[in-house]
């Protein structure tokens, strides 16, 4: 193979290497604390992917945590009250979240712009209030306990209570599936239409794109993924309660996307989610109370110097390396 072909395949090779790395990682590094951070980072990955998808359709949702809550509570109820198996309650949680998003979306997406943001901000708070007060269903502040699932594959039965490793791999699978979906959407016709709607809605409308349809589709899809993330989180913690879905979680998704890259569909949110989750947990241990301050400063610095987030480095870094190897003082030939 010639050099150009290898260079074209490089991103794919790097991606595969990264996936293999994430598969092997917990087998080599047996740090249980680190693994638990990574699993929570995985939940935030799905969450941030949903937020980024909605953002890229031109809507700035500040209440995505509400869908995390809908998914979480549905998952918990399906598991504890209805006794559904793990996979089905994840799916059920995703679907219920999507249905809620669809019904709310056809109303609040009509507002658009900042009004939509304010509506979703309220939505996040309303979700918490409902969770705290609807005692017969959500058990208020006590929350609902969820037993760790026991998954049977043929003869083999895995009890999730004894080891966290299955959570890690299921999370990895979910992220890969979600990333694949959002990546394909971004690259397909639908992605182009959604970008059109986000960038110039009036123009798009007058060439035949039904704005509401695409806004609702992407809002629903994002809620589906977020709902699954919520149910997974609840399974992982074996408990669901209002504190898990505080409105500030939606802001965390925003911070993740700003740090990772707000305008990239997949890589930005994932990178941002991993970094913010890891350092967030570390800061909680070492500099408790300073965490919001540090994130605030980091977000301002990022917006100032790298508005496209860390994914921008993929363009900046090679240029920087090249400039190191070039001889100093050599002026490029203007005539050439």
């Amino acid at each position, binding site marked *: 193979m010639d050099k150009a072909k290898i260079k074209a395949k490089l991103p794919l090779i790097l991606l595969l290497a990264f996936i293999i790395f994430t598969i092997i990682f917990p087998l080599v590094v047996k740090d249980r604390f680190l693994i638990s951070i990574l699993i929570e980072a995985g939940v935030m990955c799905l969450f941030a992917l949903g937020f980024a998808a909605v953002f890229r359709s031109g809507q700035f949702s500040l209440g995505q945590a509400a869908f995390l809550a809908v998914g979480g509570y549905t998952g918990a109820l399906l598991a504890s009250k209805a006794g559904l198996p793990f996979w089905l309650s994840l799916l059920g949680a995703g679907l219920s979240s999507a249905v809620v998003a669809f019904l709310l979306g056809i109303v609040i997406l009509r507002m658009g712009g900042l009004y939509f943001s304010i509506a979703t901000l309220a939505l996040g708070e309303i979700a918490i209030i409902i969770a705290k007060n609807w005692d017969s269903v959500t058990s208020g502040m006590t929350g609902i306990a969820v037993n760790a699932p026991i998954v049977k594959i043929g003869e083999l039965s895995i009890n999730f209570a004894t080891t966290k490793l299955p959570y890690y791999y299921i999370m990895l699978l979910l992220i890969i599936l979600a990333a694949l979906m959002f990546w*394909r959407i971004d690259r397909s*016709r*639908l992605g*182009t239409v959604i970008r059109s709607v986000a960038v110039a809605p009036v123009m798009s409308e007058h*060439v*035949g794109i039904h704005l509401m349809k695409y806004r609702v589709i992407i809002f629903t899809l994002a809620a589906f993924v977020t709902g699954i993330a919520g149910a997974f989180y609840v399974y992982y913690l074996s408990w669901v309660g209002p504190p898990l879905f505080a409105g500030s979680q939606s802001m965390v998704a925003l911070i993740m996307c700003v740090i990772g890259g707000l305008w990239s569909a997949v890589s930005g949110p994932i990178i941002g989610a991993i970094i913010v989750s890891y350092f967030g947990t570390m800061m909680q241990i070492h500099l408790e109370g300073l965490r919001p301050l540090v994130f605030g400063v980091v977000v301002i610095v990022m917006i100032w110097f790298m508005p496209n987030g860390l994914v921008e480095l993929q363009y900046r870094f090679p240029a920087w390396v090249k400039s190191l190897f070039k001889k100093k003082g050599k002026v490029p030939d203007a005539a050439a």
Partner: protein
Amino acid sequence: MPLLELNHVKKAFGSLLALDDIELSLNKGEVLGIVGPNGSGKTTLLNVISGYYHPSDGEIAYKGRKIGGLRPDQIARMGIIRTFQQNIVYWDTVTLENVYRTCYLTAKTNYWQSFFDTPAWVKENKELWTKALEIVQLFGLGDFSFSLAQGLPHGKQRSLGMAMALAADPDVLLLDEPLAGMDASEMEVVLGNIRKIIERGVTIMLVEHNIKTVLSLCPRIVVLNFGHKIADGSGQEVLKRQGVIEAYLGVE
């Protein structure tokens, strides 16, 4: 039967009647110029036809179907495409992709085919890009194909706006002041572009301030003043009417 027909169309903003009892018909292949002083309702007329506003009263029929009250995207899908007075472009991408994006109306493969990259979509996608490139070149934007649309000079952005409208395969094209804010050389280019659209057999409704250009392009002219239609006919004939002279120059 006329292609587009307006029957007693009214548009009121509160107590202000922006359009009052407009009767208008547009035949297939016609190039109709709409002129009038500022605030006479020209753009409102376009907005009402394209579905941006709903008419307060009266009926708009297109190919025999009533379109008053439909959404802009429904009307666009039926073949009525408009351009805008402001330069609206997709700022996140290059000129060529701007035109490519508005070709979507003409695509036949569905989203699932595109999601899974089926051969049918790959083939059609190639055709769409080719079509976009053709239109970009037709409008003299070839050299700017890969520059960001947002960074184009004003005149080029106007041309791009028209290219995007043409890419959506219109039957009727509503041009909203395509010559606004241009210098003489830019004007020549845009006039040439409009003639190219006319050659394609697209029915055109041209809203414009500049009477000279309207006279040179449009065999038929409609004059609006304060929301009323005060004249309808061939260029020179319309200009001689007393009402038109009064609207433009005032009463002696």
